């Protein structure tokens, strides 16, 4: 089928369209298409939360789908994310983890809407998020044990002399590796998901374009195959929505785990 010969070129074009290009200014000081949608996501988040706060204060008992829905998500975030991981100090860390969770969730879900880009679909935003999380859990550890104490607390106790410093080195390395894995996981999930969705959309459009040569039997088989790709696209779309939620969950869950590790007594 000639459609498959045209596919690599189209996919390359698609991947090139995912490279950050500035909308305003340049790539150093400007707004790329990703940061543009990130600001929209932040605006949506602010509006939703302020309206929620106002509606919630209107009556003592939460009323209506909107208030109850938002409360359900916040409750889920509090119980499953923060309280499970940090049973003692969850009150202190809940604002940070909830902020990260909602920011990533809304950004990811915005990316699923056709024609929009997720704010988390570029390396810059995810590295910034990972850096915030990294600095936060280092800060928690340093506040608890002091600067030198935190570095020393990575060394396991009860291990004989030369081995414990080797373990310490590995622990130190893996602490910095968290920065890479947090950011790369989020970025790759968004990027890969959108490339896969785009590929199936391109396949569907390539097969339907047989009609351009005239209404023949071949064109109708092409339309049938195109419908098949469309069904696959819908399935991938559903998976992508699931991934958007799960990645927000995983990012904030890992942040909570790292805070717990920094806080625990050894």
């Amino acid at each position: 089928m000639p459609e498959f010969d045209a596919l690599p070129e189209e996919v390359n074009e698609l991947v090139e369209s995912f490279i950050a290009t500035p909308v305003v200014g340049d790539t150093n000081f400007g707004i790329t298409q990703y940061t543009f949608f990130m600001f929209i996501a932040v605006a949506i988040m602010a509006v939703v939360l302020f309206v929620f706060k106002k509606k919630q204060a209107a009556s003592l008992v939460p009323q209506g789908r909107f208030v109850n829905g938002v409360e359900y998500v916040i409750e889920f975030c509090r119980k499953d994310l923060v309280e499970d991981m940090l049973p003692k100090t969850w009150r202190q860390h809940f604002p940070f983890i909830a902020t990260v969770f909602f920011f990533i969730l809304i950004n990811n879900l915005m990316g699923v809407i056709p024609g929009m880009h997720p704010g988390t679909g570029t390396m810059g935003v995810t590295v910034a998020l990972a850096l915030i999380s990294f600095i936060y859990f280092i800060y928690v550890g340093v506040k608890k044990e002091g600067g030198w104490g935190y570095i020393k607390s990575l060394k396991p106790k009860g291990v004989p002399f030369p081995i414990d410093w080797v373990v310490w080195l590995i622990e130190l390395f893996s602490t910095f590796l968290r920065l890479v894995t947090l950011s790369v996981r989020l970025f790759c999930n968004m990027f890969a998901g959108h490339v896969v969705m785009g590929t199936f959309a391109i396949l569907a459009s390539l097969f339907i374009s047989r009609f351009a040569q005239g209404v023949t039997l071949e064109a109708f088989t092409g339309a049938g195959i195109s419908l098949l790709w469309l069904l696959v696209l819908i399935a991938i779309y559903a998976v992508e929505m699931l991934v958007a939620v799960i990645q927000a969950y995983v990012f904030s869950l890992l942040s909570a785990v790292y805070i717990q590790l920094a806080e625990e007594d050894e």
Partner: protein
Amino acid sequence: MGVIGYGIGVIGAGLGIGIAAYGATTSMARQPEVQGRLFTVFILASAFVEALALIGFVVALLG
């Protein structure tokens, strides 16, 4: 070549997620009361495994 490499690389990730799901389901069948905790751990483990497969995917596309 990159696509073949990605195919080989994803075998490991597929096995990893499969083993994680197997362990989660068998332990849920034995002890249904720990379902909530297990689900969290399972999602965490799959996220770790999945990241490797995704790095392969992006490298295959870009390289």
